Each structure stands twice: as structure tokens, then as C-alpha cells.
């Protein structure tokens, strides 16, 4: 027994010593992050009263460590909307936890939870110090995820990605290919959040891009199979169609994206288009989503940037089951003007005005009736984004 204790003690000392020696020879862990505090005034809309609210819109904390010359580990914790578990406000997420192998600029391999490359903004959508917006183009607005199902439009997570670029002089051809889970993890929030993914299907996607000086173009696509349609009531949908719920499992879903950005003297133009099609293979059911945004900005000085931006979200769904035919179209158009001012390399002030117009049209074919709703409201916002 004494001998066993001695061996165990020595083993423990050896392990601890080895660990500390490895630690002392390692590169240090880099800890950094950013947060954005904002004040937003929303005018009345639907049954909501006028709102005035301060909040920590977002806080991200990063841990990064170079494991060797070629390998890097990275962790990203995200806290949204003044997160407080006591008050049950906001949300806390483990956004990223990956390890990267970089052979050279032509080949990088990222393993682990990550935000995949899709169009121009997806990968950096939550990096608020990089963006002039307070309220971001809607399908990228993480803090609005309660209202807009972001992962329906753009891929939220991947677990394996290869990417890089092939250079030829000043021209570069970018590529990225990735795999992940289909975006139906924990779809039913009422049934608890176990964190266990029961998905049996994969998300596969990628982007091919072209860069020449300040011109950047890209084409993105993803394909996955959904186990349900979160935008509609799944069970009642199956019931309306007179089908078994299992028939709506594994519906192929395709996203296509096009992005373009160009910088000319002090002007910046950025634009993206995303179209999502769920090929349900059921003639009585249609579901398509579209998103477009374009931003034209101008650097008045090196620190001061002003922009105008226009966003459109379109949701089209049709249920053509006998006796319950209806077509529903919803469009949210947002016109924005804003400015940002870089006080220094770490502090950025922002201001934004957004005019939002939400139109909804429900066409009840069986009753030959059209119900239209239109709502308009404005958002005035100021914010400070801090990188530390």
C-alpha cells in the first residue's frame, strides 16, 4: 500500500512538473475581447409601447493560444443583451472553440465549433468593433435572434472547415469548405435545452471568392436536411397537409449567397444577397426566404465614417392543402443612416437611425380573402464599442 502511494505520489509530481514545464515554455494565453453598450429608442409598433433602453448589447471574451508554430487554439464566449442569469435576461453562448492548423495561406484547417464563412458578414457578424452598425443587417443581428431566426438565413455553426486563398499577383482566389450539424439543434425550446444534438444530418457548405485590390466578390452555398420547419408550427402543419410528421423530416434546405464589396477612394460599397429554399418535395407546401442588404459609406476623415444602408427580408410561405389554402408573404424593409467615429484604435462611437416597414399579406385562397397588415416604426440608437 505504501509502495502504491509512493508510486502514485511520484506520478502526480511528475505529471504536475511536466505540465508546469510545458506551461513555462509555451506562448502565453492571449485574453482579449470587446463589448458594445447602446441606448436605443424604439417608437411604437404593433402592440408595443415606445421603448427607451440602455443595454450591454454584446460582450465577447476571447482566449487564444499558439500551441506551436502551426497550431492555434481559440475560444469565444458571447454574452448578449445585458446577460444576467438572476434576472433571466439575455443569453450566454459558447460561440467558438476551435483549433487551427495553418500550413500556409493556401491551406488552413479549423477543427471544432466555429462560425463558418458565408458571404461577407457572417464570420464577423458579432465583431461589433469592426462594424459601423448598432443594429446590424437583420439576419446578422444576434441580439434580435428572438425575433428573427438567424440560422434559417445564414449558417450559424460548423465543426470542420478548410479555407485559404490562391494568390496570383494582386489577384486572390478565396475558398472555404465546411461541415457541421444541420441547424435544427434544440429547435423546440419548450422541451428544454439539453445541449445534446439529436441531428442525424450534416450541413455542408462553402464559399468561393475573388479579390483584386479593393474589389471582393463571392459566391456561397450550403446544403442540409432539416428535421422540421421552425418558422411554421410543425405538428399542425403536418396535420393540415394530411401527412405524417415523419414525412416532413429531412427536408433538403439550400442557401445561396452572393456578396460584393468595393472600396474606392473614401467610398465603401458592400452588398449581399441570400436566398433560402426548402425543397420539401410536397407540392402543397412552399417556403422561401430572401435577404438583401446594401451599404454605401464614406470616410469623411480617417476617424469619421458615415453611411446609408438598405435591408430587405422576405418570407414567403404557402400552404395549399385542400380546404386550407393560404399564401403568406412578409417583408421587412429597413432604411438606415448612421455614422461612426473612432476615438482611437480601441474605442468607437456609433449613431444610427433606422426606419423599419413591416408588411404582411395573408391570402386565404379558399375564402378568396386577403388580409393586409402594415406597420412602421423607427429606431434611434447610439453606442460605444470598446476593444480591450
Amino acid at each position, binding site marked *: 500500500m505504501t509502495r502504491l502511494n509512493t508510486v502514485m505520489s511520484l506520478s502526480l509530481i511528475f505529471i504536475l512538473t511536466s505540465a508546469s514545464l510545458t506551461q513555462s515554455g509555451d506562448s502565453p494565453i492571449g485574453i482579449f475581447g470587446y463589448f458594445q453598450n447602446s441606448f436605443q429608442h424604439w417608437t411604437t409598433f404593433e402592440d408595443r409601447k415606445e421603448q427607451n433602453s440602455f443595454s450591454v448589447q454584446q460582450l465577447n471574451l476571447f482566449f487564444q493560444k499558439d500551441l506551436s508554430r502551426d497550431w492555434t487554439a*481559440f475560444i469565444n464566449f458571447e454574452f448578449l443583451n445585458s446577460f444576467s442569469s438572476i434576472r433571466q435576461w439575455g443569453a450566454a453562448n459558447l460561440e467558438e472553440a476551435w483549433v487551427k492548423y495553418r500550413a500556409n495561406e493556401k491551406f488552413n484547417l479549423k477543427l471544432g465549433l466555429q462560425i463558418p464563412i458565408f458571404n461577407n458578414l457572417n464570420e464577423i457578424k458579432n465583431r461589433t468593433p*469592426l462594424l459601423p452598425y448598432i443594429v446590424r443587417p437583420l439576419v446578422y443581428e444576434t441580439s434580435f435572434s428572438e425575433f428573427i431566426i438567424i440560422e434559417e438565413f445564414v449558417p450559424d455553426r460548423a465543426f470542420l472547415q478548410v479555407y485559404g486563398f490562391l494568390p496570383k499577383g494582386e489577384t486572390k482566389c478565396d475558398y472555404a469548405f465546411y461541415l457541421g450539424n444541420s441547424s435544427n439543434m434544440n429547435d423546440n425550446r419548450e422541451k428544454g435545452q439539453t445541449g445534446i444534438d439529436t441531428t442525424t444530418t450534416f450541413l455542408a457548405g462553402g464559399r468561393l471568392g475573388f479579390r483584386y485590390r479593393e474589389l471582393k466578390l463571392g459566391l456561397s452555398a450550403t446544403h442540409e436536411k432539416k428535421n422540421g420547419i421552425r418558422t411554421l408550427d410543425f405538428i399542425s402543419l403536418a396535420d393540415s397537409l394530411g401527412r405524417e410528421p415523419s414525412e416532413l423530416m429531412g427536408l433538403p434546405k439550400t442557401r445561396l449567397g452572393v456578396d460584393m464589396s468595393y472600396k474606392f477612394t473614401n467610398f465603401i460599397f458592400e452588398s449581399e444577397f441570400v436566398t433560402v429554399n426548402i425543397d420539401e418535395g410536397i407540392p402543397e407546401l412552399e417556403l422561401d426566404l430572401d435577404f438583401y442588404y446594401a451599404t454605401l459609406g464614406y470616410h469623411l476623415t480617417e476617424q469619421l465614417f458615415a453611411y446609408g444602408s438598405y435591408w430587405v427580408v422576405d418570407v414567403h410561405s404557402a400552404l395549399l392543402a385542400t380546404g386550407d389554402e393560404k399564401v403568406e408573404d412578409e417583408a421587412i424593409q429597413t432604411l438606415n443612416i448612421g455614422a461612426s467615429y473612432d476615438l482611437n484604435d480601441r474605442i468607437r462611437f456609433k449613431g444610427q437611425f433606422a426606419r423599419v416597414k413591416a408588411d404582411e399579406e395573408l391570402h386565404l385562397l379558399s375564402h378568396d380573402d386577403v388580409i393586409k397588415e402594415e406597420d412602421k416604426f423607427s429606431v434611434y440608437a447610439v453606442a460605444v464599442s470598446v476593444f480591450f
Partner: protein
Amino acid sequence: MKSVIVALFCFLVNATIVLSQVAVISHKSVPEDSMTKSVLLDLYTGDIQSWSNGEPVIVIDLKPRGDVKTAFYDFIGKKSSRIKSIWLKKKLSGEWDTPESLETEDDVVKKVASTAGAIGFVSQSSVTTDVKVLLLIQQGKN
């Protein structure tokens, strides 16, 4: 006569500025002996992060704004603010560490001379024999 002297003085000052050059310098271990504009841009934007022998590139920036810094960034075709935004994007994506910015040209020369794989830029007059000159940029030209 006075105006002629003033004009001559202005001409000489201007000529001095035009003739002064910015030197792109590297540690002596760097295998490259020369540098093109597009490669220099890729190094300073973090698109290329290793030398041809696999050694990591350590980019050094000059902190104060001045003729040397302006000439360098004009040459690679990016404003200093744009470069900083690219650096921040790479830093926040976990792709690259923000380059170290040093206060004086002497500090840049010393840092480049003592750091394997380092690259920096200074005025030609600040260059010492401890570093390798990869490229000379004539101020006011790109």
C-alpha cells in the same frame, strides 16, 4: 533677390524630401533578398504569415504618423486606418496577432535586428548594418 533665395530654399527642401527614401528592412535570417509591392501588402495585411523557409513573419509598425509612415502606406496602397481595421479583423477572428508598433525608427531597427523573421520600415538614413534592406521606396512615389 529675397524672393529668389526663398524660392531656392523651398526647392532644396522639396528636393531633399523627394530624394529621401524609406527602407523596408528585415532580420538577416529572412531568406528573401528583395520584395515586391504586392508581397509587401500581403505581409502587412497578414495574408502571408511565413517566409519561404517557413519561419513566421513578425511585422513591426512605426507608431507616430509622419512622412516615413505615410510614404510606406501610400506605397502599399492602403491608408493607415484601413490597415488597422484589417489588423483588428484578423485579431478578432483569431487569424493573426496585431503587429507591434514602436515609437522611434531606432527602436524599429533594433527590434528587427534582434527578432528572427521580423520586417519593418524606416527612413534610409536610420538603417544599420544589423539588418537587411529588402526594398527602397522613394517618398512621394508609388
